């Protein structure tokens, strides 16, 4: 389940930030490692909402700064 979430998240991040999926690790920070700006991170969260059919409130979205943050958040929501 978690591996599936990870694969989907890495795909979304790669698409939106135009980064090769091979260069994306769970540890990758959207801003520091993958070149995202503040607007990109907002849009990423919207894409996660769309993909996983969840709603991510703004206060939670602020905590999603890396691929791992996103995986953990979505996995927790899925439980």
């Amino acid at each position, binding site marked *: 389940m978690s591996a599936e979430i990870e694969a989907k998240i890495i795909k979304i991040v790669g698409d*939106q*930030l*135009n980064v090769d999926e091979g260069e994306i690790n769970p540890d990758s920070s959207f801003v520091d490692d993958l*070149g995202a700006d503040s*607007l990109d991170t*907002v*849009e990423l969260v*919207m894409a996660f909402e769309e993909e996983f059919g969840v709603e991510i409130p703004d206060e939670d979205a602020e905590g999603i700064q890396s691929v791992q943050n996103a995986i953990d958040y979505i996995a927790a929501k899925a439980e």
Partner: protein
Amino acid sequence: MTRRVVVTGVGLVTPLGTGTDITWKNLIAGKSGIRRISYFDAVDKGMACTIAGEVPDFDAEQYINRKDARKMDQFIQFGVAASMMALEQSGLVIDESNAERVGVAVGAGIGGLVTIEKTMRAYDAGGARKISPFFIPQTIINMTSGWVSMMSGAKGPNVATVTACATGTHAIGDAFEIIARGAADAMIAGGTEACICELGVGGFSAARALSTRNDEPERASRPWDKDRDGFVMGEGAGVLVLESLESAKARGAVILAEVIGYGMSGDAYHMTSPSPGGEGGGRCMKAAMNRAGINPEDVDYINAHGTSTPAGDVAETQGIKSVFGDHAKKLMVSSSKSMTGHLLGAAGGIEAAFSVLAVHNGVVPPTINLDNQDPECDLDYVPHEARQANIKVAISNSFGFGGTNASVIVRKFD
């Protein structure tokens, strides 16, 4: 002090092709870029007009990296692409030594209507959370100039004209004056537009502005013809690199033409109808000739606004006759919109480019579909076929909703 201004680069994205060479080749071959609308089912949606000039073969990623392209409405993509083409042709290198002396002025008439339409649908379906953080930057008109500056490093004046269908001409004219008065040494200037969407086509249809010759798309835009019945929407972008003569000479640039005049006027008459006798457009051409310090007899060619509307084509003809007197009959006057359709805010950009190429190449683009000339339109409209002619001076006219008029004059550079 007023400085001479020349054109050193041209970039075109039009219904006749993506690129300057392919557009020009198709233009002087008299080809139409008008087709059935493919972007949405205009018939199913009950549109009175179901045809338009869509840009063929446009691949944004040839000019813009994928991540950035996603943040741009198509009107911005077209404008950025045309700007990059123009900059490349000019050979102008923007670096620390000149960045603050190079500006950008690429306007649009409508802006990001496609994205506005799409976002409104997402909002209606899913609420405020479905509005992209890029919605505003994707749709506001000056963002083309913003992106061009970010991508090229141009740190000089950064503006965007919005004067409906006169946008491109005002942008180029204003950029000409910015350089002439010494506020910049080079400007990337023109117009861009992409609003062939349901609200765009539906809106102009509702204003009864569009042709409904839906069964003959290539013959629908027919300026000055008796059977014309409105304009056909096009999309794309036309951008020039304008530069002070000193700057162009100092770096040994190829000079395509000189910009010598710019005029503006307002009709003070009606939202969408031209002023009687085309007097607003006439005053505009006169103002441009005054600025250039030339006489009507010096003008060889007018790239007309010529949109193929019943009222507009007559008014422009009358305006030309009132300003040029006897010389009107000796002028060549053609409408490239017969082939490209009407690119709205981009029209002045592509048509200034066509005027530059006409004096540079010694070829006047034709007016196609002029099968039965309207007796009220009695000038030499260069019907059907392009004409070889060693022309020196050309005027490009653009008139917009709101009664806003702009004319730019270019001269062959020897």
